């Protein structure tokens, strides 16, 4: 278990601007100060592949035009510069997306979260995949 790192660079990918904004606001309310956004999956793929871009965690929507969330995950997990970085996928509905979840699992996704979700769920997932202990922080959101 490591210390909570509020400077962790987090990339948020969702082509729905409203949802993206809400995820970012959630992250800010948890105290994260280094949130990056990609408005399209094309933009996200460029960032993932760029050596200049520091990324510790990706929160990505799944259902996007190519490159899809799965393409992003594959690229992310196969890139040596992203070693140790985490990837959480965001899907719409568990039952119909079961195949996608299985696919994602085989490509090393660290967690998935089903829309709609509450702040505390998002926070729990992040803390979990980062291996942070829950008592480590004192922010009240969630």
């Amino acid at each position, binding site marked *: 278990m490591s210390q909570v790192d509020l400077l962790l660079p987090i990339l948020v990918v969702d082509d*729905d601007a409203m949802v993206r904004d809400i995820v970012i606001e959630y992250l800010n309310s948890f105290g994260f100060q280094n949130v990056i956004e990609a408005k399209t999956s094309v933009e996200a793929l460029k960032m993932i592949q760029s050596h200049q871009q520091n990324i510790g965690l990706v929160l990505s929507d799944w259902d996007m035009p190519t490159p899809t969330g799965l393409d992003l995950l594959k690229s992310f997990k196969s890139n040596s510069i992203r070693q140790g970085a985490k990837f959480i996928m965001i899907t*719409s509905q568990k039952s119909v997306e079961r195949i996608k979840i299985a696919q994602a699992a085989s490509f090393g996704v660290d967690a998935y979260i089903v829309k709609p979700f509450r702040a505390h769920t998002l926070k729990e997932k992040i803390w979990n995949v980062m291996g942070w202990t829950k008592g480590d922080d004192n922010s009240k959101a969630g």
Partner: protein
Amino acid sequence: MVFVTANHDPRIESINVKLGEDSVDQWDYLNKPFTKSEIIQKSRNFLALWNLKEQQSIKDQQLKELNNLLSDHERKNMLAAISRGVSHEFGNILQQIIGKAELSVNKSEAGMKEALNKILDASQKASDILQRFKNMTENHQSTSEKELVNVNELIKGTIDLMEHQFKVHQVKVCVIKNDPVFVNADPTALMQVFVNLFINASHAMVGAGQVDVSLINKADGQSLIVIRDYGPGVKSEEIEKVFEPLYTTKGEKGTGLGLPICREIIEIEHRGHLTLKNHPDKGLMVEILLPTQGVKDVAS
């Protein structure tokens, strides 16, 4: 039902006239006076007959169901495709509602007001989508009811409903001709045709693509609906083949039922024509001809 009558010399014919041909198997008669055993016998016969009829109707029902199975299967496919899109949209909308509500709790009054307005907008959108979805899934039983349908609205509704699929397949839909078109049709079945054709068009194009829709009110009393894509089209020697049930080039992913069902709906259920033509430049054109519903048709 056993008929007890005091009518003087009631001939079967006269009762038949009274009750109508359709209920011929629902009554029988005894001449008065009658005995108890006669009544029982009549009742027994009648019950047996009734049971036979019932069995027949169950068999008919099963046959009908078998016939419907094909189209039901296809409908389910289509519904699954659409409901995936709808559930994605719903996920996003509910996320907005929950997120806005949760995040505004600690905000100023102005901030809360803004959030509430966003929540209202999102809720409205959700209920619109739900309404559209309901319209298409309800009354989809085989008892197809025909009514006056504005094809312009139906096409628009279908495009709205498929917004997500089009986005995922990077398909732009252009309504390039939009004459007001009215036909006498079962709107759910017609929508099913459009959905199938739109899905086929999206599948036919790799990468970004476009679908052109034209609604044309022809002078000869026919309405023409053309759905054109920019894919590879269909080889001329295969143009009839693609209408064969179960013919698919999509492997596991296709059922090969899309086009045969479209043809059945248009040509058998609606007495129209559905034909495929390759566009001289690029892509497939699906042409649907339906009789225009005008005042003069109402009488017939």
